[in-house]
C-alpha cells in the first residue's frame, strides 16, 4: 500500500517535474509544478509529515504558484520558441550535465545510501505532528523563526520597491523618459510604496 502510493507519487512527481522543464508553455509548466508540489505533499504524508504536507499544499501549491501564474498571465508571454545553435548547444550541455550529475550521484552512493546516524528508530510522532512542530518552532527555533519574520518583511519591502511605479515612462529605449522616471521616483510622495 505504502509502496504503491510511493510509486504513484514518485512517478507523478518525476513526471510533472520533467514536464515543468520540458513544456514550452510557461503556464503549463506552472501547472505541472503545482501538480508536482501536490505529489510532494503526498510523499510528505507518506513520511508522516502531515504539517509539512499541509503547508506544502497551502503555501507552495496555493500561494506561491498562484503568484507565478499571476505573473505569467500579467506578462502575457509568447510561447517559448527556442532555436539556434547556441541554444541547442546549451540545451545539450544542460542535459548532458544533468545526466552526468545523476550518474555521479549514483556512482557515489552506490550501495551506500543513507549511511550515517540513521538508525531507523521506531518512532511514531504521527500524533500531534503539528503540535510538536509548533512547540519546537516557538521554543528551540524561536530565533530562526523571528528571523524569518524579518526575511518576509524584507521580501515584501523589496518586492514593493522593485515593482512599484509603472507607466509609460518606464522604457529603457528612451533616456529622457528614463530621467523623467527617475525624477518621479525621487518624488517624496512615492516614498510609501504603492504596489
Amino acid at each position, binding site marked *: 500500500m505504502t509502496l504503491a502510493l510511493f510509486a504513484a507519487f514518485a512517478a507523478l512527481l518525476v513526471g510533472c517535474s520533467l514536464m515543468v522543464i520540458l513544456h514550452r508553455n510557461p503556464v503549463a509548466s506552472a501547472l505541472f509544478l503545482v501538480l508536482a508540489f501536490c505529489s510532494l505533499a503526498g510523499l510528505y504524508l507518506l513520511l508522516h509529515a502531515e504539517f509539512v504536507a499541509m503547508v506544502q499544499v497551502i503555501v507552495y501549491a496555493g500561494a506561491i504558484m498562484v503568484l507565478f501564474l499571476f505573473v505569467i498571465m500579467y506578462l502575457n508571454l509568447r510561447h517559448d520558441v527556442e532555436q539556434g545553435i547556441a541554444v541547442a548547444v*546549451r540545451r545539450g*550541455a*544542460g542535459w548532458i*550535465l544533468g545526466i*552526468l*550529475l545523476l550518474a*555521479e*550521484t549514483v*556512482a*557515489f552512493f552506490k550501495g551506500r545510501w543513507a549511511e550515517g546516524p540513521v538508525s531507523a528508530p521506531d518512532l511514531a510522532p504521527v500524533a500531534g505532528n503539528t503540535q510538536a512542530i509548533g512547540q519546537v518552532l516557538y521554543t528551540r527555533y524561536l530565533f530562526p523563526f523571528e528571523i524569518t519574520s524579518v526575511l518576509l518583511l524584507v521580501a515584501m519591502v523589496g518586492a514593493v520597491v522593485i515593482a512599484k511605479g509603472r507607466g509609460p515612462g518606464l522604457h529603457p529605449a528612451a533616456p529622457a523618459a528614463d530621467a523623467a522616471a527617475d525624477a518621479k521616483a525621487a518624488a517624496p510622495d512615492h516614498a510609501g510604496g504603492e504596489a
Partner: protein
Amino acid sequence: MLALIPALPLAAVAVNLILGDRLGRRGTAFLACGAVFASFVLAALSVIHLASLPPGARTMVADVYTWMRVGDFKVDVAFLLDPLSSVMVLVVTGVGFLIHLYSVGYMAHDASFRRFFLYLNLFMFAMLTLVLAKNFLVMFVGWEGVGLCSYLLIGFWMDRPSAARAGMKAFVVNRIGDFGFLLGMLTLFAWTGSLDYERVFAAAPIVFHPGTLAITFATLALLLGATGKSAQIPLYTWLPDAMEGPTPVSALIHAATMVTAGVYMVARCHILFTMAPFSLETVAVIGAATALFAATIGVAQNDIKRVLAYSTVSQLGYMFFACGVGAFGAGIFHLMTHAFFKALLFLGAGSVIHALSGEQDMRKMGGLASRLPWTHGVMLVACVAIAGIPPFAGFFSKDEILSAAFASGHYGVWVAGLLGAVLTAFYMFRLYFLTFRGSSRLTHEAEHHLHESPAVMVAPLVVLAALSVVGGFVGLPFQEGGRRLTTLEGGAALERWLAPVFGEGGAAGASHAVPHLSFTTEWALIAVSVAAAAFGIAMASRAYAKAAGEPIAEKAPRLYGLLEHKYWIDELYDTIAVRPIRALGDVLWRFWDEKIVDGTVNGVAYVVEWASAVLRVFQTGFVGTYALFLTLGVAALIAHYLVR
C-alpha cells in the same frame, strides 16, 4: 722634488683651466712653456744629483701618499728616478720643452690656442708620470693618460671628421694594448703580491720559473700593451692616422715621447722578459717585422707626415727588436736619438706645412730648399741622422742595435733590420728630394704665402738638429773620463749609466747570453750598415732627385698600390674585427634583446592577455552560461571525489 716634475705641468693645466681666457695667448704660452721648462730644470737637477750618487745607489724615490689599500693590496702614488727613467725624463722634458716652444709659433693663429696648451701640458704630466712611476699602477695612470691626451690632440681640430676618427682609433687601439697591460699587472700582482717595481722585480726570480706559462703570459700581456702604445704589429694602425693632429703633437707624442713608452716599459721589465725567452723572442720578431714592414709602406706614402709616421713605426720596431735581442740599453739609446731626429723631422715637416699653409702632399711641393733655408738645413741633418750616416746620432744607435742582433745570433732579425735600414734611407731621401729638391710643384696660392717660419719655431729646430748631430756620442765607448775612442768593447757612456738598471754589459749584449763580437766583426758590421744606408740614399737620389712623377708607381704599379694602401691592413681589421663586432652588437640588440628577451617578457604578458580574452568569452552575460559553469563546477567537485 721628484713629484714636482710631473706636478708642474699639471699645475699649469689647473691654472689654465681656472684662469681660462683671462690668461691671454702670451700668458698661456708662457705658463705652458714655463711649466715644462721648470720641469726640465728640475729633472736636470735631479739627474745631476743622481749622477753624484755611487752607481749602485742611483735611485731617488718620492712616496706621495697611499692611493689604495685593500687587504693585502697596496699601491702608493710614488715616483722613482733611476738611470733608466732619468734618460726618459730628460728626453721628455727636454724635447717636450722645445716642442712647446715651437708650438707657440706653430699654433699662434689657432682659435683654440689655450686648449692646445692645456692638452699639451696634460700630456707632459701624464708622460712624466709614466716615466717616473715607481710602480706599475702609477705607470698605468700615465700610460692611459698619454693615450687620452693623444686622443684629444689628434682630434684637436675637431670639426674634421677624419681627425675625430683618427683620435678615436688611436684611443681604442691603445685600449686594446692597455688591456694587455692590465692583464700583465694582474698576473704580476697575483704572483708577486705587489705592483711596486722593486718588489716585483725582486720577487720575480723567486716566484716565477723562467719560461713558465705564468711569466710568459705576464710578459706577453705586457708586450701587448707595449705594441699598442708603441705602434707595433699588430696594433700599429693608429699611428699613421694620428697624423691628423697638429704637427707639434705628432712630433711630441707620436714620435719623441709617448710612442716610446712601450719600449720604455719593456726595458723597465727586462728582468721579467729575460725570464721568458719566448716573450723576448716575440719582442724581437715583432720589432723586426714592424721595422721592415712599416718601412716598405713608408716608401709609397705621399703625405709628408705619413711618411714620417711609418718611419716612426719602423724605428720603434728597431727599438723593440733591440730589446728583443736583449740589448735593452741599445733600445733606450735609439729611443733617445730617435727622439731628437724624429722630433726634428716632424717639426721640420711642420715648418714646411706651416709655410705652405697646411699643404701636406709631397707631390705638391718640391724645390723648397732655397725658399726655406733653415728648414731645409735641419731637415737634411735629420734625414742623414735617421738614415744612419756617421757620425750623426742615428748611426750610433742603429748600428748598436744591428750589431747586437747579429751578436746574439738573430741573423734573420739582423737581415730584416738591414733591409729596413736601406728602405729607411730610401724613403727619407725620397721625402727630402720630393720636398726640397726638384722643381716647384706648388700651387700659385701656396707660392704666394710661402714664408720661412718664425724664430720661435726655428730655434727649437736648430737645437734639435744639434742634438741629432751630437746625440749619438753618448753611445760612444768613452772611457771613464771621456778621453778617447779605442775599442768598442769598453762599454759606452750611456750603457754604463744604465748599467745599474740593466746590469753590467747591459748594452750590446744585455744578458749574459750575448757574446761580445770581435773588433773586426764589429767594424765589418758598421761598414755593412753604412753601405746599406748609402745605397738607400743613392737609390732615392736616382729616382727622385729630378723626377716629377712617381717612378715606383710607374714601374711596379701593383706593388705600389699595395704599399700605398698599406697592405689593406686597415680594411682587413675593419672586416675581421670592427664590422663583425658591430654586427654582433646589432644582432644582440635587435634580435636577442628585443626579440628573445623582451619577446619572452612581452610574450608572457601577451599570453596572459590572451588568456584574459579567452576567459572573457566565457563571461557571456547569459544566466544560462553562468549556471552551466556553476553546475559544471559542482559536477567536477563530485567527480574529483569519485575518481580519487
